[in-house]
């Protein structure tokens, strides 16, 4: 208890005067544990509870004397316990408000008396009594422990003749047990906060291991943990050492020095006392200075290591040094973070890369070498408590570290948080343009264009000139065709990029402007983008966003817009607070609404906002950035900008919104902020790009019904329909058709579209369009064809043939939509004839073999109306060789949607007796029975229908009973879905033709449920339920009759 209290509990800053415990979750948890211990003490250890403390625990209590009941002598202001020690002194003495307690028994009772306030009392007690253990067991006991040897304690205790000594020792052990428990407990709390840190250490040691081994070329001969046991928090140090921030101990054998036993702790890396000879224990004492990481440490200790390290990879050390010099913490974090994902790759071919990673990771993490612990760890784990505590005492004395949560650790916590965030953002869907292109540098001796030499000369002036020369050089550099890759790469290859970025860090506004103007142009090149990020350009760019100079802001934002086209860059922008600053740029234009400002400023403010929006557009491709934009209040500002009429501003704004609309939060906000209205308005703009993005945004948002209605209410359907007529701009067409698709999910919208003759146009778009357009067009038609008029319309416009033709495609999304559309058309018998003639059913059927479950399900759904409406359906189905077997086998799928659709298809197939016979032969009954235990109402409904159909053949009813399909079916009646009820009642009716099934149903309480169904307004349900009941009843009567005759 003592150690835990001294080390883990978080005391308030006021260390002098009254000590007070801070109210933190950790402290509360510790108090709670202590209370539990004390409260249960009297029951668990009645002997020890009577032990009289050497000194009483004293504190001020708020408890009223009247709260004490039997066992106490209560007066107005004092309470004495009836229990007394051998000198006749009461064990509990309360003289308001001071209380003295001298045994655990009394302590337990006191806490029980205190009831609700016991937490406060316990806290007061611990605050008032420094060193409770000393008071309880006496000073000598505490000093005894300092001698560290258990044997000593035991000796001393046994030497004392006092009969209480045994109890005292037991008590001591109990307290130590509690102490260890508390330590473990608080450790769990603390380790929660630093959990990533051990992972980092681990990764680094793994990496070092990778480059270790025999031979002269490796960096180390060996590196090993002392312990094979890894705690759940990733540390390998024993719990009582983890408290001090120690993570693990490593044994390192460099080529030229003796084996080193190293401690890796949150504070840094240092040499410890090494293994003690006999038991393999580690002497935790620090024997060397603390180094900031393992590499520094090893370089210091082993010349060979540093030599080989630099030999292995020159770049490694360069990077390393550079980072060391880098004063800012931010880029470091980023760089260290970035290569993290590459860590797992450990093949030899990645040697170089790993080296770099290793070096970088060194910067942010601390490694800890350890001592030879390995052999003893398991043994140690199970060693007696006393021993552990002894260990702890010793460590505690040697440890020089201060409070457990040191600033260093706080930093680490911060870093690990960064890392988590990064992982999240990496796992997000940022697929586009994320593949970083291979870096290709121009061959030095290849035929270099003349520009190369001219640019080289200019860069020379950039490097060596004062600001005047620099500006001249920048201006003439701008005269080159910077859109040309040769020039872009030439600037980089002669080292111009570094200088340009460097210039951004100066105070020279003109140089900054010139440099940004060039960077803005050349950052169109993907390689240059990557180089800019590698050179740490983004933090500088982000800082420039704060500049009071508007053109600087604009240029910086535009450059960021170009650079942030790949994931790492976007992350860097966010990491350095760029999103907030960019969002702040949007605010400029808002103020300019005030009439007081001149139009000149107006224009510049609008330009700033435009550039900000442009950069946000690029950044908004990352999930985490979308979040950041939202948090920075970007939605409102974007919505505000949307009301302006500057076209070139609207494009990035709508682009950002469209990008962000993939997030639910944004869609809600877009609806709430009346953004739809403006989107619709801008659909009418002249600018094709703007139209495209507006349509795209509508497409993203229109999954929501309200939004669809809003689009209609604001008159957005007409412009959408009219935009269909212009088919030259395929991207816009895709966006527009997408918007139409999503909007047509609402029936009212479909009616409008029909008014605007959009459906005819859509049919016309079924041919000669790129897939992105086709997916949307077909999707829209699929929605439209849910209505009779539109089906007729589609048929009349000749839409069926192209639809059926599309069934042979390979694009999954397209296939899902096409099958849906074809299925919708097939509801119309006339259309069905056309589909049949075009062999559409065969095509649909073959899609059941598609590997993608969505396609399978969609195809199966489409087959249902086909079979229903085809003439001579049975014959048609049979004509598909192997078709029925295929369908039955799909029942083995584990996708609910597929299962439901296949059940529906089987229901239709089974209408034909011959086909039913075939599928029965293929084992449809056991497969259906197996599915019976499901909670999915859609599947339940179609399954029940299929079962009811399949009952009509041979012994199938009996077989369903045998495969135990009946009991689950009865449970379906408890579902909330009326469709399920109907289908189930019908199935049960069919099944009840078999006596055994009737018995099962009756046993499962079907009769009561069915009786309720008889009262349903649904006739089919009524009929089926009644039929089923009558079958059950008839069986009962027959049985009775048989019994009495």
């Amino acid at each position, binding site marked *: 208890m003592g150690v835990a209290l001294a080390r883990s509990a978080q005391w308030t800053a006021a260390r002098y005067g009254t000590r007070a415990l801070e109210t933190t979750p950790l402290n509360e948890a510790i108090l709670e544990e202590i209370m539990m211990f004390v409260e249960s003490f009297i029951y668990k250890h009645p002997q020890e509870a009577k032990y009289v403390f050497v000194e009483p625990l004293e504190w001020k209590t708020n408890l009223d004397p009247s709260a004490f009941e039997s066992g106490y002598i209560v007066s107005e202001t004092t309470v004495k316990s009836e229990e007394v020690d051998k000198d006749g002194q009461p064990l509990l003495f309360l003289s308001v408000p001071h209380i003295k307690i001298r045994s655990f028994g009394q302590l337990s009772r006191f806490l029980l008396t205190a009831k609700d306030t016991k937490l406060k009392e316990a806290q007061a007690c611990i605050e008032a009594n420094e060193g409770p253990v000393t008071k309880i067991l006496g000073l000598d006991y505490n000093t005894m422990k300092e001698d560290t040897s258990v044997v000593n304690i035991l000796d001393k205790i046994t030497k004392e003749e006092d009969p209480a000594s045994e109890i005292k020792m037991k008590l001591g052990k109990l307290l130590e047990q509690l102490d260890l428990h508390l330590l473990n407990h608080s450790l769990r709390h603390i380790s929660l906060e630093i959990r990533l840190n051990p992972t980092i250490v681990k990764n680094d040691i793994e990496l070092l291991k990778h480059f270790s081994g025999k031979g002269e070329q490796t960096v180390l001969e060996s590196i090993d943990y002392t312990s094979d046991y890894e705690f759940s928090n990733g540390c390998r140090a024993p719990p009582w050492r983890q408290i001090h921030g120690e993570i693990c101990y490593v044994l390192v054998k460099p080529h030229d020095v003796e084996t080193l036993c190293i401690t890796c702790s949150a504070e840094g890396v240092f040499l410890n006392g090494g293994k003690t000879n006999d038991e393999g224990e580690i002497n935790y004492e620090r024997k060397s200075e603390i180094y900031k990481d393992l590499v520094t440490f090893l370089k210091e200790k082993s010349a060979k290591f540093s030599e080989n390290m630099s030999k292995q990879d020159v770049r490694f050390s360069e990077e390393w040094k550079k980072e060391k010099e880098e004063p800012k913490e931010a880029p470091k974090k980023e760089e260290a973070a970035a290569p993290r994902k590459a860590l797992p790759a450990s093949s030899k071919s990645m040697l170089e890369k790993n080296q770099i990673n290793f070096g970088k990771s060194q910067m942010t993490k601390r490694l800890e070498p350890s001592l030879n612990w390995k052999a003893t760890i398991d043994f140690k784990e199970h060693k007696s408590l006393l021993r552990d505590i002894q260990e702890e005492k010793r460590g505690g004395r040697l440890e020089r570290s201060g409070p457990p949560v040191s600033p260093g650790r706080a930093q680490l916590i911060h870093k690990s948080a960064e890392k988590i965030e990064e992982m999240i953002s990496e796992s997000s869907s940022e697929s586009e343009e994320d593949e970083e292109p291979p870096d290709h540098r121009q061959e030095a001796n290849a035929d270099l264009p003349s520009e190369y030499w001219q640019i080289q000369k200019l860069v*020379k*002036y950039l490097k060596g000139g004062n600001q*005047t*020369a620099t500006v001249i050089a920048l*201006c003439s550099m*701008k*005269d080159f065709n910077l859109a040309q890759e040769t020039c872009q790469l030439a600037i980089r290859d002669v080292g111009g990029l570094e200088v340009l970025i460097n210039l951004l860090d100066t105070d020279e506004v003109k140089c900054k402007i010139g440099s940004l103007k060039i960077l803005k142009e050349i950052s169109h090149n993907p390689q240059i983008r990557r180089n800019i990020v590698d050179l740490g350009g983004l933090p500088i760019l982000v800082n420039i966003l704060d500049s009071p100079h508007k053109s600087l802001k604009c240029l910086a934002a535009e450059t960021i817009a170009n650079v942030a086209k790949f994931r790492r860059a976007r992350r860097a922008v966010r990491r350095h607070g760029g999103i907030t600053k960019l969002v702040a740029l949007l605010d400029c234009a808002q103020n300019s609404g005030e009439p007081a400002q001149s139009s000149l400023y107006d224009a510049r403010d609008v330009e700033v906002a435009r550039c900000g929006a442009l950069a946000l557009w690029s950044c908004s491709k990352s999930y985490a950035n979308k979040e950041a934009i939202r948090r920075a209040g970007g939605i409102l500002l974007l919505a505000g900008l949307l009301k302006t009429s500057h076209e070139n501003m609207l494009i990035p704004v709508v682009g950002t919104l469209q990008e962000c609309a993939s997030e639910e939060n944004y869609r809600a906000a877009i609806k709430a902020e009346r953004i739809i209205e403006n989107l619709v308005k801008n659909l009418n703009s002249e600018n094709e790009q703007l139209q495209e993005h507006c349509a795209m945004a509508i497409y993203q948002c229109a999954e929501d019904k309200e939004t669809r209605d809003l689009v209609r209410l604001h008159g957005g359907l007409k412009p959408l329909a009219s935009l269909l007529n212009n088919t030259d701009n395929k991207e816009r067409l895709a966006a527009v058709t997408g918007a139409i698709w999503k909007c047509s999910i609402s029936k009212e919208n479909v009616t409008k579209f029909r008014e605007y003759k959009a459906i005819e146009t859509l049919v016309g778009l079924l041919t000669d369009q790129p897939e992105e357009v086709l997916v949307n067009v077909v999707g829209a038609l699929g929605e439209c064809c849910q209505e009779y008029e539109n089906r007729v319309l589609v048929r009349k416009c000749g839409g069926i043939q192209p639809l059926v033709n599309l069934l042979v495609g390979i694009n999954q999304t397209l296939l899902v939509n096409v099958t849906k559309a074809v299925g919708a058309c097939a509801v119309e018998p006339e259309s069905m004839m056309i589909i049949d003639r075009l062999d559409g059913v065969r095509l649909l059927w073959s899609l059941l073999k598609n590997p993608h479950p969505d396609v399978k399900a969609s195809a199966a759904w489409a087959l249902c109306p086909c079979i229903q409406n085809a003439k001579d359906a049975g014959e048609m189905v049979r004509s598909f060789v192997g078709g029925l077997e295929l369908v039955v086998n799909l029942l083995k799928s584990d996708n609910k949607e597929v299962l439901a659709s296949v059940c529906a298809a089987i229901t239709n197939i089974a209408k034909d007796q011959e086909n039913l016979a075939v599928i029965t032969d293929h084992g449809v009954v056991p497969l259906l029975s197996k599915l019976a235990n499901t909670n999915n109402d859609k599947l339940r409904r179609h399954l029940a229908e299929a079962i009811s159909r399949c009952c009509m053949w041979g012994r199938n009813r009996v077989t369903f009973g045998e495969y135990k399909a009946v009991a689950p079916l009865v449970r379906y009646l408890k579902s909330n879905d009326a469709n399920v009820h109907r289908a189930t009642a019908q199935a049960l009716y069919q099944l009840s033709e078999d006596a055994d099934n009737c018995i099962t149903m009756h046993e499962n309480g079907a009769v009561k449920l069915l009786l309720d169904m008889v009262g349903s307004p649904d006739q089919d349900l009524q009929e089926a339920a009644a039929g089923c009941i009558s079958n059950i009843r008839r069986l009962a009567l027959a049985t009775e009759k048989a019994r009495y005759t």
Partner: protein
Amino acid sequence: MSYFLITRASSTIGTRSCLVNYFLLDWCTRGLSLSCIYLYFYFAVKKSEVECLLRVFHSLVEKANVRLNNFGLDRNAFRAILHSIFGMTDDMLMNRVFFAFDKDNDNCINAKEWVKGLSVFLRGTFEEKLKFCFEVYYLNGDGYISREEIFDMLKNSLHQQTSEEETDEGIKELVDITLKKMDYDNDGKISFADFEKAVKEERLLLEVFGPRLPEAKVQCQ
């Protein structure tokens, strides 16, 4: 009489602030040239700014301790101001700025020249600044910036390299680059038309041969 004029002047521009009148009166009594008061009719500088400029001028003149008969700032005083207030360091450039300010070539900047010069200096329109810069850059009065002048102006713009020759070589190349960029009519010197065209294309070239105007960061404050 003068007071009457002043009130007339301020009422013409629609401001009747007693405070302004008071200041104007104050200046008159201190013997400032009345013509200065009309400056704000001719320049884009705001009235209050003119007032400030004049006050600054007055205090500077007092500090410079010049003879009263030649009321104004002489070259040295002006250069000191440029150096301390606008952070210019290049002697030659400061001289040129002085000459550009000193319209009447009397080697002394009077209050009118001061306000006029600074109005361009601080608040000038683009065209004004353009003209001002060009004036600062050509000095032999022929209306052209010659190759030699450019060389003079740029000669300190490179860090000393290994040898004098090499630096000279570098400067020459820089002059070539500049001429290539700015000399549109290829006559080996930069005319105002050339200058105007180049600067309009790239505003950074406004102070191409060395900083002539107060720093942008000063402007922003």
